[in-house]
């Protein structure tokens, strides 16, 4: 018998999931379920939309309306779904590759439109599904199967990218900082407008192995040390800052939401008719 939150929110008959032992994605998927449970949302109105990748397999396990789409396009599918039926709570689950490599354009445009969709990114800094190629978030100098001599790309800061593109709620947590993760997901879901929560995940199988960073446990221990809340930024000295990754809420503002704006036009015509 699984726990209550699992029973309530998952397709239990499909568990255990296909993810590797120690894969961080399971931790993040549970965090989303807990957030949904705590918000007491109508399960029939929740849609989980994902692309392709290990992370994107999450959709298949969660007991909502689930849409497992094509690589990189989840947010675009989600946009259609949400515009067609604004009553739905549309949550996108996407990997770093899915959302910021092939899917980068849809991500920034959803941010720009400020459409009421919540996107959760499982960022393991690698393409897990295809076997460990470097991704747009793989840190410089680290290795991937396509970066055998060390990655020369600069990594995206997904939160910064989303902010620059116009998202109105942006936060980051990790598989170590699960309570924060749940808190941000809850706030993101409740936020009117486009919200993004980046969950730093771990891929022991490829990222850990390729970069000789040890097991899942080692990787998560690293998170404990390396991630610092953004509120503490000012207290750190310059050298410290270099080696730290910041987490926390980066942006939380209210701006006109896309669908509400669209319905103003529809309502305008309704009024015209009734006049």
């Amino acid at each position: 018998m699984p726990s209550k939150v699992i029973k309530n929110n998952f397709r239990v008959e499909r568990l255990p999931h296909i993810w590797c032992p120690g894969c961080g994605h399971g931790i993040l998927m549970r965090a989303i379920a807990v957030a949904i449970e705590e918000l007491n949302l109508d399960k029939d109105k929740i849609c989980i939309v994902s692309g392709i990748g290990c992370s994107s397999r999450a959709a298949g396990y969660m007991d909502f309306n689930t849409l497992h789409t094509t690589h990189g396009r989840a947010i675009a599918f989600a946009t259609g779904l949400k515009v067609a039926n604004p009553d739905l709570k549309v949550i996108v689950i996407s990997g770093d590759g899915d959302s910021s490599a092939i899917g980068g354009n849809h991500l920034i445009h959803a941010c720009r439109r400020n459409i009421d969709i919540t996107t959760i990114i499982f960022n393991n800094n690698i393409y897990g599904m295809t076997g460990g190629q470097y991704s747009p978030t793989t840190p410089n100098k680290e290795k991937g199967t396509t970066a055998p001599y060390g990655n020369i790309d600069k990594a995206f800061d997904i939160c910064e990218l989303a902010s620059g593109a116009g998202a109105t709620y942006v936060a980051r947590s990790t598989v170590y900082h699960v309570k924060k993760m749940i808190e941000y997901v809850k706030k993101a879901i409740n936020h009117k407008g486009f919200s993004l929560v980046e969950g730093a995940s771990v891929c022991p199988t490829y990222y850990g192995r390729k970069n000789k960073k040890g097991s899942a446990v080692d990787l998560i221990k690293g998170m404990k040390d390396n991630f610092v809340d953004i509120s503490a930024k000012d207290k750190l000295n310059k050298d410290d800052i270099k080696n730290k990754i910041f987490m926390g809420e980066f942006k939380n503002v209210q701006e006109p939401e896309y669908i509400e704006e669209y319905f103003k036009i529809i309502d305008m015509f309704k009024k015209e008719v009734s006049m």
Partner: protein
Amino acid sequence: MPGDEKKIVIKNDWCKGCGICAEFCPKKILYIYNDKVNIKQEDECIKCGLCEMRCPDYAIYLEEFMCKEDKSYA
């Protein structure tokens, strides 16, 4: 105390033996044997739920035995 109503449960067939729960258990009462998680001294468990929170496979969790209302899982 709310902790009293809870009990740690292991779903053995889902456990993949990753060791995350054991590493981060504040009481260090979990250990891996034969690729599965085990409990050393169950009575030392403080029911903090950290193992459940970080288990990627939902194979360990706290069960509430007399719960009336939905408590937060966070």
